[in-house]
C-alpha cells in the first residue's frame, strides 16, 4: 500500500518495501518476522541518507518514522528522550521555546534521531562540539533474540560505540536520550566574506574557526585558472539576545521529478558566478533565523527531484590536515576540469574532538562535499577523486556514498571488523554488502 522508499539521491534505483512500525513493543516481533520471511532487513528513518547505506539488501525496510513519540523532556537540564523516528525538526520545535538547541545539527532538520546516531552526523560546529554521537547519553537497542538493551558509555559500552556511526547494523535503535545546548536566542549572528583561492580559505579558517561556534564555506567547483578555489566563507554564533522562535517558513516544494536533471553545466556556471559575486569582499555581518542559516534547502521540499529521474550522487571526503590543502586543490582541479558538479559544494574544517563512535566519519582535517547529477561518466571521475583521497590518507562518508570500493572502505575504516562482529545478523544494507565483500 505505502509508496516505495528510496534513498535521498535516488541512486542506486532500488525501491524498498516499507514495513512500518508504530509501537516499540512491536519491534522484536517485526524484526523476527522480516528476518524469517526475507532473510534480513534494515531500519529506515526519513530517507535522508544519499546513497545505499539506508537501503536494505533484501529491499524490505523496517520503516521507523511512525515511531515518533517523545518519552521524557527535562527543560531544566536540556535533556530529551524520544523514540528513534522523531525528526530533529520536531525536537527543535519543542526545545527552542525553552531555550535549547541541538548540540550538533546536520544540514537538514528532516533526519530522524535514529538516523542521526546511526550515521554519527556532524555539522558546522564540528571543530568545537564534535559529532552528534558526542551528545548521545544513551539509547535502547533491539537485537534479534536479545530484546531491548540499554546502551551508554557505562552500559553495554561496546554496542554503544559500535552503534554510533554503525549504519543501523548493530540492532534497531528504539529510542535515545540526547543532551541539548542552551541558547538565548534562535537567531544566528553570521558573518560572510568571499575568498579568491584555497590558500585564503585555509588562512580564514585558521583565523576564524576557533572564534566561532559555526564555520563553513561554499566553493565554486567549476572555477578554473586564476579563479580556482574561490568561494564564500561563513561563520556564525547563536545571538546573545533576541527571541526564541520556531522555524515558520512557508515551505515550497518541487512538485514532480523532471525527466532530466535541471542542473547542468550551463545553469550551474551562471549560478556559481552570480552567487560568488553576490557576496562581499569585506566581512559583512548579519542576523538570520536559525533555519535559513542551517537549513537553507529545507525550505524547498523534495529538492532532490531537481536532479531528474536518474538522481544524483554526493561525493563527500575528509582529508587529514597535513595533506588537506594540496589534496583539496587537486580534487577541485580534477572536478573543474570534468565540468561536472553542482552549486552544493561545501568545504569545512573538522576539529579533533573524538567521537564515541567506532565508525565515525570526521577526522581532523578538511571535508569537501558536492553533488553530481547521476550519469555514466561519473564513475571515471570518481575513480580519479578516490585516488587523490586515498593518497592523502582521507576517507569517504558512508552516509553519502553509493560508489566507494570495498578495498578503500576497509582501508579507511579499520574498525569495520569490530562492527561486523557486533552486527545483528538479521540486519544488512546494500552498502554493507557492497563494501565488506
Amino acid at each position, binding site marked *: *500500500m*505505502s*509508496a516505495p522508499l528510496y534513498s535521498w539521491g535516488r541512486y542506486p534505483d532500488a525501491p524498498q518495501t516499507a514495513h*512500518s512500525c*508504530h*509501537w*516499540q*513493543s512491536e519491534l522484536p516481533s517485526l524484526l523476527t518476522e522480516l528476518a524469517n520471511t526475507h532473510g534480513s532487513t534494515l531500519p529506515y528513518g526519513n530517507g535522508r541518507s544519499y546513497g545505499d547505506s539506508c537501503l536494505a539488501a533484501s529491499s524490505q525496510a523496517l520503516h521507523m518514522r*511512525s515511531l515518533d*513519540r*517523545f*518519552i*521524557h*523532556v527535562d527543560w531544566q537540564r536540556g535533556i*530529551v528522550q*524520544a523514540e528513534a523516528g522523531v525528526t530533529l525538526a520536531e525536537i527543535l520545535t*519543542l526545545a527552542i521555546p525553552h531555550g535549547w538547541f541541538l548540540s550538533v545539527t546536520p544540514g537538514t532538520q528532516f533526519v530522524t534521531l535514529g538516523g542521526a546516531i546511526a550515521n554519527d552526523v556532524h555539522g558546522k560546529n564540528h571543530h568545537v562540539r564534535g559529532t552528534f554521537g558526542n551528545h548521545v547519553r544513551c539509547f535502547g537497542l533491539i537485537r534479534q533474540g536479545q530484546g531491548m538493551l540499554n546502551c551508554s558509555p557505562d552500559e553495554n559500552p561496546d554496542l554503544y560505540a559500535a552503534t554510533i556511526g554503525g549504519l543501523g547494523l548493530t540492532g534497531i535503535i528504539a529510542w535515545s536520550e540526547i543532551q541539548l545546548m542552551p541558547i538565548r536566542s534562535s537567531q544566528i549572528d553570521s558573518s560572510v566574506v568571499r575568498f579568491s583561492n584555497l590558500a585564503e580559505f585555509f588562512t580564514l579558517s585558521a583565523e576564524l574557526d576557533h572564534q566561532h561556534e559555526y564555520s563553513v564555506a561554499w566553493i565554486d567547483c567549476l572555477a578554473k585558472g586564476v579563479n580556482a578555489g574561490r568561494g564564500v566563507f561563513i561563520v556564525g554564533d547563536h545571538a546573545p539576545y533576541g527571541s526564541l522562535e520556531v522555524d515558520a517558513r512557508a515551505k515550497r516544494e518541487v512538485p514532480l521529478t523532471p525527466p532530466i536533471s535541471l542542473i547542468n553545466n550551463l545553469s550551474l556556471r551562471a549560478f556559481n558566478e552570480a552567487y560568488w559575486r553576490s557576496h562581499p569582499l569585506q566581512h559583512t555581518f548579519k542576523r538570520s533565523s536559525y533555519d535559513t542559516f542551517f537549513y537553507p534547502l529545507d525550505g524547498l521540499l523534495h529538492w532532490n527531484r531537481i536532479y531528474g529521474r536518474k538522481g544524483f550522487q554526493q561525493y563527500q571526503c575528509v582529508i587529514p590536515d597535513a595533506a588537506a590543502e594540496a589534496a583539496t586543490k587537486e580534487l577541485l582541479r580534477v572536478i573543474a576540469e570534468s565540468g561536472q558538479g553542482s552549486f552544493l559544494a561545501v568545504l569545512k574544517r573538522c576539529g579533533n574532538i573524538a567521537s564515541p563512535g567506532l565508525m565515525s566519519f570526521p577526522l581532523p582535517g578538511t571535508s569537501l562535499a558536492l553533488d553530481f547529477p547521476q550519469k555514466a561518466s561519473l564513475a571515471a571521475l570518481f575513480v580519479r577523486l578516490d585516488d587523490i583521497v586515498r593518497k592523502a590518507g582521507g576517507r569517504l562518508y558512508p552516509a553519502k556514498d553509493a560508489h566507494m570500493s570495498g578495498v578503500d572502505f576497509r582501508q579507511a575504516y579499520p574498525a569495520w571488523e569490530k562492527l561486523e562482529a557486533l552486527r545483528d545478523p538479521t540486519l544488512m544494507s546494500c552498502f554493507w554488502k557492497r563494501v565488506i565483500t
Partner: protein
Amino acid sequence: MKRVLIVGATSAIATACARLWAEQGAEFFLVARNSEKLEQTRSDLLARGAKVVTSYTMDVTDFSGHAEMVEQCRAALQQIDIALIAHGTLPNQRACEQDVETALSEFAINGTSVISLLTLLAKQFETQHCGTLAVISSVAGDRGRPSNYLYGTAKAAVSTFCEGLRARLYKVGVHVIDIKPGFVDTPMTQGLPLPAQLVVKPEQIAKRIVKGIENKTNVLYTPGFWKAIMLIIKLVPQFVFKKTNL
C-alpha cells in the same frame, strides 16, 4: 485552554489530533484499551505541551463501564470542551459473513459502543450547554459495498445517530461533527492494497479535523476530495451498484 476527552486515544488519527491540541496547552482525559500504549501516548503529549493528561484504561465493548468512565472524565476535566470518539477496527468482511458472532462483535466495537458513549456524553454536554462531540465515522458508511459492508453498516448507524443527535443538541448549544475520513496511512489500514495516491498521512487528516471542530462543520469529509468521490458513488443506481465489487 481546551479540555479534551479522547476515546480510542492511541489510534493514529486521535494521536495526531491530540498533538495539535497539546501544542495549545490542552488538558486531556485519554481512554484506550492497552495501558502500555496509553502511557506512551500520555508521555508524548505531556512533552509536547499538554498541561495535564489523565489516562484511563477501558475496553469499549465493556458497555457496563461506559458510565463510570464518563463520570471519571467529568470529575477530572470538570467541563468537556471536545469529546473525540476515535476508536474502531477494520473487520475482515469474509469472516463476518461466515460467523454471526464475529459480525456482531465487530458491529459492537464500531457501532453500538459509539451509540452508548454518545448517549451518555450527550447528557453531560446537555448540562454544560457547550462543547463539541466529534465522532470519527467513515466514507465507508455512505454505501453498503460488498467488500466491506459490515464496517459500512456500523459507520452508517453512527452517522445517522450523529445527525439526529446534532439536531437535538443544537438547541442547547452543543455541536456534533461527523468526521468521514477516506484512506489514511495508519496501523488499521496497514497491508491493505489501497491506491497509494489516495492514501494520506494521519497528520493531514488531523489538521482538518481540528479546524472542522473549530468551524463547527456538520459533516467533514477528509481529505476534501472524498466528498466528490462519495457523491458520485452515492448516485450510482442500485441496478448498477449491485453488479460492482467495490
